[in-house]
């Protein structure tokens, strides 16, 4: 075995190692990384900053991966010297490590422009997870942030900070934003969109200094203006890390020079990634680096042959609601431009065509067709035939792209470089039927994620039994997965359904997304939001269940199914007074008054003098109980009182789907606790707390969450699960699906077995919701609007 030493534990280096491992084993591998993290998806730092993903969600290679492949990982160690004669590398920890083969994958660092005071506190780059953590710590509402640089990084940083509540100004030296990817017109459209988001953009302004003592207090511009700043991000470009190239005596220009086989001027030293210069180009995007990695893996393992011929660059801006795509050579020298723009819609498109072939594309405001154009660019397809509808393709069924029309060689995932053909092959060979399996098998859509919907379409089209996953988007109106949406609402402090629809959706909404968003807002903001009844199903506007004839059913809460002669009398009187067509004992130990007119509801509630049983909504239904120790000769626990207490703790709260509960005094289970969403099953000396049961559409025996001794502990366990379900489940996902999807082990780990602090936090959030929740039937006395329950009657009529 030869020793392979890799310097740089980043995306290109590790992707290359992954490729090397596919060849016959011949190396003992040691990897040095001066960051203290395992390899993560640097691309997604923007999403982490914007709150769309958590930091641990972007790990690409967990520690197990390094262990599994016997890789020596030296985290936090910076390689400071290379000795090509002795064939050793020296670490800043004093270590000296010999190598037979050396792979430099040192990437690049943020460029530090000649600006005084860059060393002050609160001045950061945006390159690493640590940078991002620092920013997250300081990015608080009303913090004044200045971002120096209006390129991809700068803009994504700006949006991230603004999402956190900062007042953000972007200072850009050039006359338009992203001038390296967009022409002047495209740049202007982009500026408009950033300003619409509430980000201030200053163009043609050069920064001279960061002012303040130790801490940055402002940013001084050439023309003398000083921008107030509590936080400064420098995103003025990147510089390849080539020091080790020099030290190893390699041929170095802007980057470490590598040929088409990815060889450097030293036969035992190779380089890959952003630190490389290939045919005069240093790349700053992942796609080319991964292509380089494949070629290098072949060369380095003695399978020299494949060549790297350079890459057509494509850039996508990852800011929700600001779609920007740029690829190839869009300059207009010796190419005829084809343009479309719509100021009102903020859409700008430009294609450049040379001898019947597409050579460049710019899309702002609508990037649905980007994959089509990328395909044409890569394949150099002859377009003379379709010249007339290059910008307006025949309407396509799936997201602006007709899959069938796409060649198998067409790249679907630009980041990882996966073709349509490869995906289809994987689906057939490996019997793939879910997105996660597809990611696992092909790594497609594990980069910036912009091709996810495309992959799903292919799955839908090709996979025999395609399973939509929890990740699937809420609906066409707001095309985001529900967990992303929850994160968005939180981080962006969105507090009304219409706001969400306007910023992230089609502005209209429908009967699917409106109630779902209403639930999320209520769960997240606990009443500190704008409760919009127009977004609620009729049941939740009048707090009763609509019937086939337009009347409503009324089911008052009867805690634990225990009633009283007085209650029964009132129910009987109400039934008479409003001649209710049917009075029924329900399947949940309660009484249903069916066939009540909308306008009678408030009076009915008042006369009943009971609270809402929430039988009409996605909320807390009943707690069924059995008689337990009070009367039953087998009783081991006082299930009746426990059930009543439980119902009081949860009543009036909303949930992703209805939550039905039961408590029983012994395993004979007379109130069917083991087929309820949450059940307490009494036994000698304690309780079993069970969750995820059902006996409806589907029948499922509840899983054991935990066994405890006291009723207090049992109720607390129930509360932990209840709040966890409220926060983690998708709208309209019953606990039997939720527990099935997440897995009871994870549920246990994150509720009853979670660290003290986490448990307390869950309970506190539950209490916050509880404090804000009230009996919906109180609106009978104080309606939210004068016509909540009554129809309109003509004022007077005039002939015309």
């Amino acid at each position, binding site marked *: 075995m030869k020793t392979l030493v890799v310097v740089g534990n980043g995306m290109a280096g590790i992707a290359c190692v992954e490729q090397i491992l596919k060849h016959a084993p011949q190396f003992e591998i040691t990897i040095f990384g001066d960051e203290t993290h395992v390899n993560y998806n640097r691309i997604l730092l923007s999403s982490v900053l914007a709150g769309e993903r958590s930091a641990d969600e972007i790990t690409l290679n967990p520690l197990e991966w390094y262990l599994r492949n016997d890789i020596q990982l030296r985290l936090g160690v910076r390689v400071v010297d290379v000795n090509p004669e002795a064939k050793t590398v020296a670490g800043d920890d004093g270590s000296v490590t010999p190598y037979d083969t050396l792979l430099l994958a040192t990437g690049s660092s943020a460029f530090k422009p000649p600006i005084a005071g860059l060393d002050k506190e609160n001045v950061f780059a945006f390159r690493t997870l640590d940078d991002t953590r620092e920013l997250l710590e300081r990015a608080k509402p009303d913090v004044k942030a200045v971002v120096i640089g209006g390129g991809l990084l700068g803009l994504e940083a700006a949006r991230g900070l603004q999402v956190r509540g900062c007042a953000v100004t972007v200072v850009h030296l050039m006359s338009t934003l992203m001038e390296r990817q967009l022409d002047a017109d495209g740049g202007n459209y982009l500026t408009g969109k950033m300003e619409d988001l509430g980000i201030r953009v200053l163009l043609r302004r050069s920064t001279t200094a960061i002012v303040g003592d130790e801490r940055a207090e402002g940013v001084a511009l050439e023309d003398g203006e000083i921008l107030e700043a509590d936080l400064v991000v420098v995103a003025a470009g990147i510089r390849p890390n080539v020091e080790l190239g020099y030290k190893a005596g390699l041929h170095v220009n802007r980057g470490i020079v590598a040929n088409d086989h990815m060889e450097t001027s030293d036969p035992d030293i190779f380089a890959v990634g952003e630190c490389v210069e290939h045919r005069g180009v240093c790349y700053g995007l992942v796609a080319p680096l991964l292509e380089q990695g494949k070629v290098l893996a072949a060369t380095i393992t003695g399978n020299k042959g494949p060549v790297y011929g350079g890459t057509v660059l494509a850039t996508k801006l990852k800011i929700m609601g600001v779609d920007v795509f740029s690829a190839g050579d869009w300059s207009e020298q010796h190419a005829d431009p084809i343009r479309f723009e719509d100021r009102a819609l903020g859409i700008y498109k430009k294609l450049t065509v040379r001898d019947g072939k597409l050579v460049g594309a710019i899309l702002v405001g609508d990037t649905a067709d980007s994959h089509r154009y990328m395909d044409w660019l890569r394949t150099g397809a002859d377009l003379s035939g379709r010249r007339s509808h290059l910008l307006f393709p025949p309407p396509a069924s799936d997201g602006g792209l007709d899959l069938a029309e796409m060649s198998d060689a067409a790249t679907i995932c630009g980041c990882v470089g996966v073709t349509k053909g490869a995906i289809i092959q994987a689906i057939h060979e490996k019997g793939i039927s879910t997105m996660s399996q597809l990611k696992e098998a092909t790594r497609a859509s594990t980069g910036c994620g912009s091709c996810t919907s495309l992959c799903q379409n292919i799955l839908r089209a090709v996979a025999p039994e395609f399973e939509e996953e929890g990740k699937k988007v809420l609906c066409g109106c707001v095309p985001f997965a529900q967990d992303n949406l929850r994160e968005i609402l939180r981080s962006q402090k969105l507090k009304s359904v219409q706001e969400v629809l306007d910023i992230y959706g089609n502005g209209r*909404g429908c009967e699917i997304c409106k109630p779902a968003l209403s639930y999320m807002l209520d769960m997240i903001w606990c009443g500190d939001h704008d409760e919009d009844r127009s*977004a*609620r199903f009729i049941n939740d506007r009048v707090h009763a269940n609509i019937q086939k004839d337009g009347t409503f059913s009324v089911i008052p809460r009867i805690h634990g199914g225990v009633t009283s002669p007085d209650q029964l009398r009132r129910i009987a009187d109400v039934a008479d007074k409003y001649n209710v067509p049917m009075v029924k004992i329900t399947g949940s130990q309660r009484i249903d008054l069916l066939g009540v007119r909308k306008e009678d509801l408030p009076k009915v509630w008042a006369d009943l003098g009971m609270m809402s049983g929430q039988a009409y909504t996605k909320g807390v239904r009943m707690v069924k109980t059995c008689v337990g120790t009070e009367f039953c000769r087998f009783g081991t626990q006082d299930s009746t009182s426990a059930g009543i207490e439980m119902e009081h703790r949860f009543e009036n709260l909303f949930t992703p789907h209805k939550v039905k509960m039961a408590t029983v005094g012994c395993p004979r289970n007379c109130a069917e606790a083991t087929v309820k969403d949450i059940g307490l099953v009494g036994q000698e000396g304690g309780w079993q707390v069970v969750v995820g049961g059902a006996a409806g559409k589907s029948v499922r025996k509840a899983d054991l969450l935990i066994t405890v001794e006291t009723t207090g502990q049992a109720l607390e366990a129930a509360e932990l699960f209840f709040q966890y379900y409220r926060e983690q489940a998708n709208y309209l996902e019953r606990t039997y699906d939720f527990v099935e999807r997440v897995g009871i082990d994870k549920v246990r780990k994150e509720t009853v077995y979670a660290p003290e602090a986490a448990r307390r936090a869950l309970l506190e959030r539950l209490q916050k919701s509880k404090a804000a929740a009230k009996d919906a039937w109180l609106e009978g006395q104080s309606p939210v609007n004068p016509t909540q329950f009554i129809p*309109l009657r003509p004022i007077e*009529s005039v002939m015309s």
Partner: protein
Amino acid sequence: MSWIRIATCDSIPPREGRAAVIGERQIAVFNLGDRFLAVDNLCPHQSGPLCDGIVAGDAVVCPLHAWKVNLETGAVARPAEQDHCVRTYATRVDDGVVSIDA
């Protein structure tokens, strides 16, 4: 046909509908924020009360079985295959009062 003054604009919250009772008939009046639209309060499917539906753009979704009715034209937008139509009524607003031509 005659213009009937139904209610003050603010008695119908934005993006909600209300039933207007006119003799024997019920007409569903909707406030789309920038304008008011009126249709018969009878879903062509099984006579569900359209006024109680969720408004989706310029359509309403019936609360009973989610048929979707376009409020401008009265045409049924979902399910696609069938061609029922709901009767629509002209509306107008003067000094804060909604009238419908019924």
